[in-house]
Protein backbone atom coordinates (compact mmCIF):
# COMPACT_ATOMS: atom_id res chain seq x y z
CA UNK A 1 0.00 0.00 0.00
CA UNK A 2 1.29 3.43 -0.97
CA UNK A 3 2.26 5.83 1.78
CA UNK A 4 -1.04 7.57 2.54
CA UNK A 5 -1.80 10.77 4.40
CA UNK A 6 -5.46 11.07 5.34
CA UNK A 7 -6.79 14.48 6.39
CA UNK A 8 -9.04 13.89 9.40
CA UNK A 9 -11.24 16.96 8.90
CA UNK A 10 -11.09 20.16 6.83
CA UNK A 11 -8.98 22.83 8.58
CA UNK A 12 -10.71 25.99 9.74
CA UNK A 13 -8.17 28.16 7.90
CA UNK A 14 -5.99 27.08 4.97
CA UNK A 15 -3.32 24.53 5.73
CA UNK A 16 -0.03 24.90 3.85
CA UNK A 17 1.78 21.64 3.15
CA UNK A 18 4.76 22.75 1.09
CA UNK A 19 7.36 20.01 1.03
CA UNK A 20 5.03 17.04 1.52
CA UNK A 21 6.25 15.31 -1.62
CA UNK A 22 7.07 11.67 -2.34
CA UNK A 23 10.74 12.41 -2.96
CA UNK A 24 11.14 14.13 0.42
CA UNK A 25 9.11 11.60 2.35
CA UNK A 26 10.87 8.59 0.83
CA UNK A 27 13.01 6.86 3.45
CA UNK A 28 11.48 8.66 6.43
CA UNK A 29 10.07 6.61 9.28
CA UNK A 30 6.44 7.09 10.25
CA UNK A 31 7.34 9.08 13.35
CA UNK A 32 9.52 11.41 11.31
CA UNK A 33 6.71 12.00 8.82
CA UNK A 34 4.22 12.71 11.60
CA UNK A 35 6.60 15.27 13.07
CA UNK A 36 6.95 17.25 9.83
CA UNK A 37 5.90 20.88 9.89
CA UNK A 38 2.74 22.24 8.27
CA UNK A 39 1.41 25.80 8.53
CA UNK A 40 -2.11 26.19 9.81
CA UNK A 41 -2.83 29.83 9.07
CA UNK A 42 0.10 31.57 10.74
CA UNK A 43 0.80 28.73 13.20
CA UNK A 44 3.47 26.11 12.83
CA UNK A 45 1.95 22.69 13.54
CA UNK A 46 2.90 19.05 13.15
CA UNK A 47 1.57 16.97 10.29
CA UNK A 48 0.14 14.43 12.74
CA UNK A 49 -2.15 17.14 14.12
CA UNK A 50 -4.12 16.99 10.87
CA UNK A 51 -3.23 13.80 9.00
CA UNK A 52 -3.23 10.10 9.77
CA UNK A 53 -0.22 8.36 8.24
CA UNK A 54 -0.51 4.82 6.88
CA UNK A 55 1.24 2.60 4.33
CA UNK A 56 4.92 2.61 3.51
CA UNK A 57 5.44 3.16 -0.25
CA UNK A 58 8.83 4.37 -1.39
CA UNK A 59 7.80 6.04 -4.64
CA UNK A 60 4.09 6.85 -4.46
CA UNK A 61 2.38 9.15 -2.01
CA UNK A 62 -1.39 9.37 -1.65
CA UNK A 63 -3.23 12.20 0.10
CA UNK A 64 -6.90 11.70 1.01
CA UNK A 65 -9.71 13.68 2.62
CA UNK A 66 -11.40 17.01 1.94
CA UNK A 67 -8.34 18.91 0.76
CA UNK A 68 -9.99 22.03 -0.66
CA UNK A 69 -8.35 24.16 2.05
CA UNK A 70 -5.00 22.45 1.80
CA UNK A 71 -2.57 24.56 -0.20
CA UNK A 72 0.72 23.79 -1.93
CA UNK A 73 0.10 20.06 -2.27
CA UNK A 74 3.08 18.61 -4.13
CA UNK A 75 4.80 21.99 -4.34
CA UNK A 76 8.47 21.69 -5.21
CA UNK A 77 8.24 17.98 -5.94
CA UNK A 78 11.15 16.61 -7.97
CA UNK A 79 10.38 12.91 -8.47
CA UNK A 80 7.94 10.11 -7.71
CA UNK A 81 4.16 10.13 -7.93
CA UNK A 82 1.69 12.02 -5.76
CA UNK A 83 -2.00 11.24 -5.97
CA UNK A 84 -4.52 13.63 -4.48
CA UNK A 85 -7.67 11.60 -4.00
CA UNK A 86 -10.25 14.34 -4.46
CA UNK A 87 -10.18 18.13 -4.80
CA UNK A 88 -7.01 20.07 -4.04
CA UNK A 89 -6.59 23.62 -2.77
CA UNK A 90 -4.69 26.53 -4.23
CA UNK A 91 -1.08 26.39 -5.46
CA UNK A 92 -1.19 22.64 -6.03
CA UNK A 93 1.96 21.57 -7.86
CA UNK A 94 3.54 25.03 -7.61
CA UNK A 95 7.23 24.97 -8.51
CA UNK A 96 6.93 21.33 -9.59
CA UNK A 97 10.31 20.16 -10.90
CA UNK A 98 9.73 16.49 -11.70
CA UNK A 99 7.60 13.41 -11.13
CA UNK A 100 3.86 13.17 -11.60
CA UNK A 101 1.17 14.83 -9.55
CA UNK A 102 -2.37 13.58 -10.16
CA UNK A 103 -5.38 15.41 -8.74
CA UNK A 104 -8.37 13.15 -9.04
CA UNK A 105 -10.83 16.01 -8.48
CA UNK A 106 -10.59 19.77 -9.08
CA UNK A 107 -7.53 21.91 -8.42
CA UNK A 108 -7.76 25.43 -6.98
CA UNK A 109 -6.30 28.62 -8.41
CA UNK A 110 -2.57 28.98 -9.13
CA UNK A 111 -2.02 25.26 -9.75
CA UNK A 112 1.32 24.54 -11.39
CA UNK A 113 2.57 28.11 -11.09
CA UNK A 114 6.30 28.38 -11.65
CA UNK A 115 6.50 24.74 -12.77
CA UNK A 116 9.82 23.68 -14.24
CA UNK A 117 9.31 20.03 -15.06
CA UNK A 118 7.28 16.92 -14.39
CA UNK A 119 3.60 16.46 -15.07
CA UNK A 120 0.52 17.79 -13.32
CA UNK A 121 -2.71 15.96 -14.19
CA UNK A 122 -6.05 17.34 -13.04
CA UNK A 123 -8.89 14.89 -13.63
CA UNK A 124 -11.48 17.54 -12.81
CA UNK A 125 -11.24 21.26 -13.50
CA UNK A 126 -8.56 23.80 -12.63
CA UNK A 127 -8.94 27.39 -11.41
CA UNK A 128 -7.41 30.65 -12.55
CA UNK A 129 -3.72 31.26 -13.28
CA UNK A 130 -3.03 27.61 -14.05
CA UNK A 131 0.67 27.33 -14.94
CA UNK A 132 1.08 31.05 -14.41
CA UNK A 133 3.66 33.06 -12.55
CA UNK A 134 4.28 32.78 -8.84
CA UNK A 135 3.38 35.88 -6.84
CA UNK A 136 5.91 38.63 -7.50
CA UNK A 137 7.33 36.98 -10.62
CA UNK A 138 6.77 37.87 -14.25
CA UNK A 139 7.69 34.52 -15.76
CA UNK A 140 5.26 31.64 -15.45
CA UNK A 141 5.72 27.94 -16.01
CA UNK A 142 9.18 27.11 -17.40
CA UNK A 143 8.83 23.44 -18.24
CA UNK A 144 6.81 20.27 -17.81
CA UNK A 145 3.24 19.45 -18.71
CA UNK A 146 -0.16 20.26 -17.28
CA UNK A 147 -3.16 18.21 -18.40
CA UNK A 148 -6.65 19.18 -17.31
CA UNK A 149 -9.51 16.87 -18.16
CA UNK A 150 -12.19 19.41 -17.21
CA UNK A 151 -12.29 23.19 -17.63
CA UNK A 152 -9.76 25.83 -16.63
CA UNK A 153 -10.15 29.40 -15.42
CA UNK A 154 -8.81 32.74 -16.58
CA UNK A 155 -5.22 33.66 -17.43
CA UNK A 156 -3.91 30.13 -17.74
CA UNK A 157 -0.28 30.10 -18.85
CA UNK A 158 0.20 33.76 -17.94
CA UNK A 159 3.87 34.52 -18.52
CA UNK A 160 4.41 30.98 -19.82
CA UNK A 161 8.01 30.52 -20.90
CA UNK A 162 8.24 26.82 -21.75
CA UNK A 163 6.13 23.70 -21.38
CA UNK A 164 2.70 22.48 -22.36
CA UNK A 165 -0.72 23.20 -20.89
CA UNK A 166 -3.60 21.20 -22.35
CA UNK A 167 -7.22 21.56 -21.29
CA UNK A 168 -9.89 19.15 -22.50
CA UNK A 169 -12.74 21.46 -21.53
CA UNK A 170 -13.29 25.18 -21.81
CA UNK A 171 -10.59 27.73 -21.01
CA UNK A 172 -11.38 31.14 -19.50
CA UNK A 173 -10.33 34.61 -20.57
CA UNK A 174 -6.85 35.86 -21.42
CA UNK A 175 -5.19 32.48 -21.84
CA UNK A 176 -1.48 32.93 -22.50
CA UNK A 177 -1.46 36.48 -21.19
CA UNK A 178 2.06 37.89 -21.72
CA UNK A 179 3.30 34.44 -22.64
CA UNK A 180 6.92 34.27 -23.77
CA UNK A 181 6.93 30.81 -25.37
CA UNK A 182 5.50 27.34 -24.76
CA UNK A 183 2.22 25.82 -25.85
CA UNK A 184 -1.39 25.99 -24.69
CA UNK A 185 -3.94 23.60 -26.20
CA UNK A 186 -7.62 24.28 -25.55
CA UNK A 187 -9.83 21.48 -26.78
CA UNK A 188 -13.14 22.78 -25.53
CA UNK A 189 -13.17 26.46 -26.36
CA UNK A 190 -11.13 29.52 -25.61
CA UNK A 191 -12.33 32.61 -23.75
CA UNK A 192 -11.91 36.24 -24.70
CA UNK A 193 -8.62 37.95 -25.44
CA UNK A 194 -6.40 34.91 -25.84
CA UNK A 195 -2.71 35.65 -26.20
CA UNK A 196 -2.97 39.25 -25.08
CA UNK A 197 0.56 40.71 -25.08
CA UNK A 198 2.07 37.36 -26.01
CA UNK A 199 5.58 37.58 -27.47
CA UNK A 200 6.15 34.03 -28.71
CA UNK A 201 4.58 30.63 -28.20
CA UNK A 202 1.52 28.80 -29.43
CA UNK A 203 -2.12 28.73 -28.44
CA UNK A 204 -4.22 26.06 -30.14
CA UNK A 205 -8.00 26.27 -30.29
CA UNK A 206 -10.39 23.68 -31.67
CA UNK A 207 -13.35 26.00 -32.12
CA UNK A 208 -14.16 29.56 -33.13
CA UNK A 209 -12.22 32.23 -31.25
CA UNK A 210 -12.77 35.96 -30.92
CA UNK A 211 -9.31 37.37 -31.44
CA UNK A 212 -7.85 40.67 -30.45
CA UNK A 213 -7.47 43.08 -33.40
CA UNK A 214 -3.71 42.97 -32.89
CA UNK A 215 -3.52 39.47 -34.37
CA UNK A 216 -3.02 39.06 -38.13
CA UNK A 217 -3.99 36.12 -40.32
CA UNK A 218 -1.05 34.32 -41.96
CA UNK A 219 -2.30 31.20 -43.70
CA UNK A 220 -4.20 27.98 -43.33
CA UNK A 221 -2.03 24.86 -43.11
CA UNK A 222 -1.35 21.58 -41.32
CA UNK A 223 1.46 22.22 -38.81
CA UNK A 224 3.78 19.23 -38.57
CA UNK A 225 4.76 19.93 -35.00
CA UNK A 226 1.14 19.98 -33.88
CA UNK A 227 0.71 16.36 -34.93
CA UNK A 228 3.42 15.45 -32.42
CA UNK A 229 1.74 17.42 -29.67
CA UNK A 230 -1.79 16.17 -30.29
CA UNK A 231 -0.70 12.54 -30.63
CA UNK A 232 1.27 12.93 -27.41
CA UNK A 233 -1.80 14.32 -25.63
CA UNK A 234 -4.00 11.55 -26.97
CA UNK A 235 -1.52 8.99 -25.67
CA UNK A 236 -1.84 10.66 -22.26
CA UNK A 237 -5.61 10.23 -22.32
CA UNK A 238 -7.01 13.50 -23.63
CA UNK A 239 -9.90 13.14 -26.11
CA UNK A 240 -8.23 14.08 -29.40
CA UNK A 241 -9.91 13.10 -32.66
CA UNK A 242 -8.28 12.16 -35.96
CA UNK A 243 -9.92 15.26 -37.42
CA UNK A 244 -8.05 17.45 -34.95
CA UNK A 245 -4.75 15.68 -35.51
CA UNK A 246 -5.02 15.66 -39.31
CA UNK A 247 -6.84 18.97 -39.62
CA UNK A 248 -6.01 22.33 -41.16
CA UNK A 249 -5.39 25.23 -38.83
CA UNK A 250 -5.64 28.94 -39.44
CA UNK A 251 -2.49 30.65 -38.22
CA UNK A 252 -2.93 34.04 -36.62
CA UNK A 253 0.23 35.88 -35.55
CA UNK A 254 0.45 38.26 -32.64
CA UNK A 255 0.38 40.07 -30.45
CA UNK A 256 1.09 42.99 -32.76
CA UNK A 257 1.70 45.18 -29.74
CA UNK A 258 4.64 42.97 -28.88
CA UNK A 259 6.95 40.97 -31.19
CA UNK A 260 4.20 39.33 -33.26
CA UNK A 261 6.17 36.11 -32.98
CA UNK A 262 3.39 34.26 -31.19
CA UNK A 263 0.65 32.31 -32.92
CA UNK A 264 -2.91 31.21 -32.35
CA UNK A 265 -3.80 28.14 -34.39
CA UNK A 266 -7.52 27.62 -34.91
CA UNK A 267 -8.89 24.37 -36.30
CA UNK A 268 -10.84 24.89 -39.49
CA UNK A 269 -13.95 22.98 -40.38
CA UNK A 270 -13.85 20.40 -43.13
CA UNK A 271 -11.07 18.23 -44.58
Amino acid sequence: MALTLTLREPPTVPLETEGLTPDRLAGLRRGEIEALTVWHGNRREQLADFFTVSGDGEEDLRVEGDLRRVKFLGAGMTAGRLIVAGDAGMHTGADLHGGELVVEGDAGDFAGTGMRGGRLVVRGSAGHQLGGAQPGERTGMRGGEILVHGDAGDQIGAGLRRGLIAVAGRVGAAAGLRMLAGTIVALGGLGAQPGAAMRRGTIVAMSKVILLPTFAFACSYRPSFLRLYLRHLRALGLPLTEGQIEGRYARWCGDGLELRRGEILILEAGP
Partner: protein
Amino acid sequence: MRLSDTEVVDTFAEAFPMWGARIVMTAKSPAWAQEAARSLTGFATSVIGCKCEAGIERDLDPAETPDGRPGVSALLFANDREGLAKRLVERIGQSVLTCPTTACFNGLDGEETVNVGGQLRFFGDGYQASKVLDGRRYWRVPVMEGEFLIEERFAVAEGVAGGNIIILGRDAAGALRAAEAAAAAMRSLRDVILPFPGGIARSGSKVGSRYSGLIASTNESLCPTLRAQVPDTDVPPDVGSVLEIVIDGLTLEAVRDAMARGLEAAAGAGARQVTAGNYGGSLGPHHIDLRGLVPGLRDD
Protein backbone atom coordinates in the same frame (compact mmCIF):
# COMPACT_ATOMS: atom_id res chain seq x y z
CA MET B 1 34.02 -25.52 -47.11
CA ARG B 2 30.71 -26.01 -48.88
CA LEU B 3 27.16 -24.79 -48.44
CA SER B 4 24.89 -26.77 -50.76
CA ASP B 5 26.78 -26.70 -54.08
CA THR B 6 28.57 -23.47 -53.28
CA GLU B 7 32.20 -23.43 -52.27
CA VAL B 8 32.80 -21.15 -49.27
CA VAL B 9 36.35 -19.95 -48.79
CA ASP B 10 37.67 -20.34 -45.26
CA THR B 11 38.42 -16.68 -44.71
CA PHE B 12 37.02 -13.65 -42.94
CA ALA B 13 35.63 -10.19 -43.55
CA GLU B 14 37.62 -7.42 -41.96
CA ALA B 15 35.41 -4.66 -40.64
CA PHE B 16 36.07 -1.27 -39.07
CA PRO B 17 34.45 0.98 -36.51
CA MET B 18 32.42 3.83 -37.96
CA TRP B 19 30.01 6.26 -36.36
CA GLY B 20 26.40 5.85 -37.34
CA ALA B 21 23.05 7.61 -37.02
CA ARG B 22 19.50 6.66 -37.88
CA ILE B 23 17.41 9.27 -39.69
CA VAL B 24 13.64 8.93 -39.74
CA MET B 25 11.94 10.85 -42.51
CA THR B 26 8.17 11.18 -42.68
CA ALA B 27 5.98 12.70 -45.34
CA LYS B 28 2.42 13.04 -46.56
CA SER B 29 2.76 9.79 -48.52
CA PRO B 30 5.14 6.83 -48.62
CA ALA B 31 6.28 8.01 -52.05
CA TRP B 32 7.48 11.39 -50.77
CA ALA B 33 9.18 9.78 -47.79
CA GLN B 34 10.99 7.51 -50.24
CA GLU B 35 11.98 10.49 -52.38
CA ALA B 36 13.59 12.16 -49.40
CA ALA B 37 15.33 8.97 -48.32
CA ARG B 38 16.68 8.23 -51.78
CA SER B 39 18.02 11.73 -52.09
CA LEU B 40 19.55 11.63 -48.59
CA THR B 41 21.30 8.33 -49.22
CA GLY B 42 22.36 9.07 -52.78
CA PHE B 43 26.06 9.24 -53.64
CA ALA B 44 26.98 7.70 -50.31
CA THR B 45 28.46 4.37 -51.33
CA SER B 46 31.90 4.62 -49.78
CA VAL B 47 33.77 6.94 -47.43
CA ILE B 48 36.61 6.80 -49.94
CA GLY B 49 34.83 9.11 -52.34
CA CYS B 50 31.64 10.24 -50.61
CA LYS B 51 32.81 11.08 -47.07
CA CYS B 52 30.09 8.82 -45.72
CA GLU B 53 28.14 5.65 -46.38
CA ALA B 54 24.37 5.61 -46.24
CA GLY B 55 21.41 3.53 -47.20
CA ILE B 56 17.72 3.04 -46.64
CA GLU B 57 17.07 0.70 -43.74
CA ARG B 58 13.33 0.13 -44.17
CA ASP B 59 9.90 1.64 -44.72
CA LEU B 60 8.01 2.67 -41.60
CA ASP B 61 4.30 2.35 -40.99
CA PRO B 62 2.53 5.46 -39.67
CA ALA B 63 2.21 3.71 -36.31
CA GLU B 64 6.01 3.56 -36.04
CA THR B 65 6.78 7.23 -36.72
CA PRO B 66 6.76 10.16 -34.30
CA ASP B 67 4.15 12.14 -36.24
CA GLY B 68 1.99 9.21 -37.35
CA ARG B 69 2.73 9.64 -41.05
CA PRO B 70 4.37 7.20 -43.47
CA GLY B 71 8.11 7.18 -43.13
CA VAL B 72 11.45 5.72 -44.06
CA SER B 73 14.45 5.10 -41.85
CA ALA B 74 17.97 5.42 -43.17
CA LEU B 75 21.37 4.82 -41.62
CA LEU B 76 24.33 7.07 -42.27
CA PHE B 77 27.92 6.26 -41.29
CA ALA B 78 31.10 8.33 -41.24
CA ASN B 79 34.62 7.89 -39.95
CA ASP B 80 34.21 9.98 -36.83
CA ARG B 81 31.59 11.72 -34.75
CA GLU B 82 32.38 15.19 -36.07
CA GLY B 83 32.33 14.01 -39.67
CA LEU B 84 29.03 12.30 -39.10
CA ALA B 85 27.51 15.49 -37.70
CA LYS B 86 28.66 17.44 -40.76
CA ARG B 87 27.28 14.90 -43.19
CA LEU B 88 23.94 14.83 -41.37
CA VAL B 89 23.60 18.60 -41.57
CA GLU B 90 24.62 18.66 -45.24
CA ARG B 91 22.46 15.82 -46.40
CA ILE B 92 19.35 16.54 -44.37
CA GLY B 93 19.67 20.19 -45.33
CA GLN B 94 19.94 19.47 -49.03
CA SER B 95 17.72 16.43 -49.35
CA VAL B 96 15.06 16.40 -46.63
CA LEU B 97 14.52 20.07 -45.87
CA THR B 98 14.03 20.63 -49.59
CA CYS B 99 11.65 17.73 -50.14
CA PRO B 100 7.90 18.57 -50.09
CA THR B 101 5.86 17.60 -47.00
CA THR B 102 8.72 15.98 -45.05
CA ALA B 103 9.70 16.09 -41.41
CA CYS B 104 12.87 14.60 -39.97
CA PHE B 105 13.52 12.86 -36.65
CA ASN B 106 16.29 11.14 -34.76
CA GLY B 107 15.71 7.40 -34.88
CA LEU B 108 18.36 6.15 -32.49
CA ASP B 109 18.43 5.94 -28.70
CA GLY B 110 21.68 6.92 -27.05
CA GLU B 111 23.41 9.30 -24.73
CA GLU B 112 25.81 10.70 -27.28
CA THR B 113 24.19 13.17 -29.66
CA VAL B 114 25.13 15.69 -32.31
CA ASN B 115 23.43 18.95 -33.20
CA VAL B 116 21.59 18.72 -36.50
CA GLY B 117 18.29 20.56 -36.31
CA GLY B 118 19.96 23.19 -34.19
CA GLN B 119 22.22 23.95 -37.18
CA LEU B 120 19.61 23.71 -39.89
CA ARG B 121 17.34 26.08 -37.99
CA PHE B 122 19.45 28.97 -39.24
CA PHE B 123 17.90 28.49 -42.66
CA GLY B 124 14.88 30.11 -41.03
CA ASP B 125 16.84 33.38 -40.89
CA GLY B 126 15.47 34.34 -37.51
CA TYR B 127 11.89 33.25 -38.19
CA GLN B 128 12.49 29.70 -36.92
CA ALA B 129 10.83 28.59 -33.70
CA SER B 130 11.54 25.75 -31.34
CA LYS B 131 9.26 23.41 -29.45
CA VAL B 132 10.22 21.13 -26.58
CA LEU B 133 8.07 18.05 -26.11
CA ASP B 134 8.79 15.15 -23.80
CA GLY B 135 12.39 16.27 -23.31
CA ARG B 136 13.15 16.61 -27.02
CA ARG B 137 13.63 19.90 -28.81
CA TYR B 138 12.29 20.34 -32.32
CA TRP B 139 12.83 23.21 -34.76
CA ARG B 140 10.13 24.61 -36.97
CA VAL B 141 11.78 26.14 -40.00
CA PRO B 142 9.49 28.23 -42.21
CA VAL B 143 9.73 27.27 -45.89
CA MET B 144 7.78 28.36 -48.95
CA GLU B 145 5.64 25.24 -48.84
CA GLY B 146 4.79 25.63 -45.15
CA GLU B 147 7.04 24.46 -42.36
CA PHE B 148 9.90 21.98 -42.04
CA LEU B 149 10.06 20.19 -38.70
CA ILE B 150 13.32 18.66 -37.53
CA GLU B 151 14.55 17.29 -34.25
CA GLU B 152 17.44 19.25 -32.77
CA ARG B 153 19.77 16.46 -31.72
CA PHE B 154 20.47 13.11 -33.33
CA ALA B 155 21.98 10.23 -31.39
CA VAL B 156 25.17 8.75 -32.77
CA ALA B 157 26.74 5.43 -31.95
CA GLU B 158 29.87 3.55 -32.87
CA GLY B 159 28.89 0.97 -35.46
CA VAL B 160 30.65 -1.41 -37.79
CA ALA B 161 31.40 -0.81 -41.46
CA GLY B 162 32.96 -2.96 -44.09
CA GLY B 163 31.29 -6.27 -43.41
CA ASN B 164 31.16 -8.01 -46.75
CA ILE B 165 30.68 -11.10 -48.80
CA ILE B 166 32.06 -11.61 -52.30
CA ILE B 167 29.99 -13.72 -54.67
CA LEU B 168 31.56 -15.50 -57.59
CA GLY B 169 29.37 -16.81 -60.43
CA ARG B 170 29.98 -18.87 -63.50
CA ASP B 171 28.86 -15.93 -65.62
CA ALA B 172 27.62 -12.38 -65.11
CA ALA B 173 23.96 -13.40 -65.01
CA GLY B 174 24.62 -16.11 -62.44
CA ALA B 175 26.67 -13.84 -60.20
CA LEU B 176 24.06 -11.10 -60.38
CA ARG B 177 21.23 -13.53 -59.62
CA ALA B 178 23.02 -14.80 -56.51
CA ALA B 179 23.99 -11.29 -55.39
CA GLU B 180 20.44 -10.01 -55.85
CA ALA B 181 19.13 -12.87 -53.73
CA ALA B 182 21.73 -12.14 -51.06
CA ALA B 183 20.99 -8.41 -51.03
CA ALA B 184 17.26 -9.03 -50.77
CA ALA B 185 17.78 -11.36 -47.81
CA MET B 186 20.04 -8.84 -46.06
CA ARG B 187 17.66 -5.94 -46.61
CA SER B 188 15.02 -7.70 -44.54
CA LEU B 189 17.16 -7.13 -41.44
CA ARG B 190 17.20 -4.09 -39.20
CA ASP B 191 20.24 -2.10 -38.08
CA VAL B 192 22.12 -2.69 -41.33
CA ILE B 193 22.39 -1.04 -44.72
CA LEU B 194 23.98 -2.01 -48.02
CA PRO B 195 25.41 1.30 -49.28
CA PHE B 196 26.15 0.37 -52.90
CA PRO B 197 23.67 0.61 -55.80
CA GLY B 198 21.00 -2.01 -55.27
CA GLY B 199 23.16 -3.18 -52.39
CA ILE B 200 25.74 -4.61 -54.79
CA ALA B 201 29.21 -3.42 -55.85
CA ARG B 202 30.83 -4.71 -59.02
CA SER B 203 34.08 -2.87 -58.44
CA GLY B 204 35.56 -4.16 -55.21
CA SER B 205 38.80 -2.32 -54.52
CA LYS B 206 42.15 -2.83 -52.94
CA VAL B 207 44.06 -0.27 -50.93
CA GLY B 208 46.42 1.90 -52.98
CA SER B 209 47.40 2.01 -56.62
CA ARG B 210 50.42 2.10 -58.86
CA TYR B 211 49.40 5.72 -59.53
CA SER B 212 50.44 8.13 -56.81
CA GLY B 213 47.61 9.94 -55.09
CA LEU B 214 45.04 7.23 -55.71
CA ILE B 215 44.09 5.64 -52.42
CA ALA B 216 42.10 2.75 -53.90
CA SER B 217 42.06 0.89 -57.17
CA THR B 218 40.57 -2.17 -58.78
CA ASN B 219 41.02 -5.47 -57.01
CA GLU B 220 42.77 -7.22 -59.88
CA SER B 221 43.02 -10.54 -58.09
CA LEU B 222 39.22 -10.86 -58.35
CA CYS B 223 38.82 -9.50 -61.87
CA PRO B 224 37.93 -12.42 -64.19
CA THR B 225 39.27 -10.60 -67.25
CA LEU B 226 42.72 -10.41 -65.64
CA ARG B 227 42.89 -14.04 -64.54
CA ALA B 228 45.54 -14.76 -67.17
CA GLN B 229 47.49 -11.60 -66.48
CA VAL B 230 47.92 -11.38 -62.72
CA PRO B 231 50.10 -13.86 -60.86
CA ASP B 232 47.96 -14.06 -57.72
CA THR B 233 44.48 -14.38 -59.14
CA ASP B 234 41.72 -15.60 -56.85
CA VAL B 235 39.33 -16.28 -59.71
CA PRO B 236 38.73 -20.01 -60.27
CA PRO B 237 38.79 -21.19 -63.88
CA ASP B 238 35.03 -21.67 -64.08
CA VAL B 239 34.15 -18.21 -62.74
CA GLY B 240 33.19 -15.43 -65.13
CA SER B 241 31.92 -12.66 -62.83
CA VAL B 242 32.40 -11.44 -59.24
CA LEU B 243 30.21 -9.12 -57.17
CA GLU B 244 30.58 -7.79 -53.64
CA ILE B 245 28.04 -6.82 -51.03
CA VAL B 246 29.26 -4.39 -48.37
CA ILE B 247 27.36 -4.17 -45.10
CA ASP B 248 27.39 -1.36 -42.57
CA GLY B 249 25.58 -1.87 -39.30
CA LEU B 250 24.92 -0.37 -35.93
CA THR B 251 26.34 -3.46 -34.19
CA LEU B 252 28.77 -6.24 -35.02
CA GLU B 253 26.01 -8.79 -34.43
CA ALA B 254 23.76 -7.11 -36.99
CA VAL B 255 26.54 -7.15 -39.59
CA ARG B 256 27.34 -10.80 -38.85
CA ASP B 257 23.65 -11.74 -39.13
CA ALA B 258 23.40 -9.95 -42.45
CA MET B 259 26.48 -11.75 -43.80
CA ALA B 260 24.99 -15.08 -42.72
CA ARG B 261 21.67 -14.33 -44.44
CA GLY B 262 23.49 -13.22 -47.56
CA LEU B 263 25.70 -16.28 -47.64
CA GLU B 264 22.74 -18.62 -47.38
CA ALA B 265 20.76 -16.75 -50.01
CA ALA B 266 23.70 -16.59 -52.44
CA ALA B 267 24.30 -20.30 -52.05
CA GLY B 268 20.62 -20.98 -52.53
CA ALA B 269 20.65 -18.94 -55.72
CA GLY B 270 23.53 -20.96 -57.21
CA ALA B 271 26.67 -18.97 -56.46
CA ARG B 272 29.78 -20.87 -57.59
CA GLN B 273 31.82 -19.57 -54.68
CA VAL B 274 31.48 -17.12 -51.78
CA THR B 275 34.43 -15.46 -50.11
CA ALA B 276 35.05 -12.29 -48.11
CA GLY B 277 37.41 -9.35 -48.34
CA ASN B 278 40.09 -8.53 -45.82
CA TYR B 279 43.46 -6.88 -45.51
CA GLY B 280 45.23 -9.74 -43.82
CA GLY B 281 43.68 -8.87 -40.50
CA SER B 282 46.05 -6.06 -39.71
CA LEU B 283 43.76 -3.07 -40.33
CA GLY B 284 40.28 -3.70 -38.99
CA PRO B 285 39.58 -4.80 -35.43
CA HIS B 286 36.50 -6.82 -36.36
CA HIS B 287 37.12 -10.18 -38.07
CA ILE B 288 33.98 -11.99 -39.14
CA ASP B 289 34.82 -15.57 -40.10
CA LEU B 290 32.76 -17.25 -42.77
CA ARG B 291 33.42 -20.53 -40.94
CA GLY B 292 30.65 -21.05 -38.46
CA LEU B 293 28.54 -18.26 -39.91
CA VAL B 294 25.67 -20.53 -40.95
CA PRO B 295 24.72 -23.95 -39.58
CA GLY B 296 24.72 -25.88 -42.89
CA LEU B 297 28.35 -25.10 -43.68
CA ARG B 298 30.48 -28.26 -43.97
CA ASP B 299 34.12 -29.00 -44.69
CA ASP B 300 34.93 -30.52 -48.08
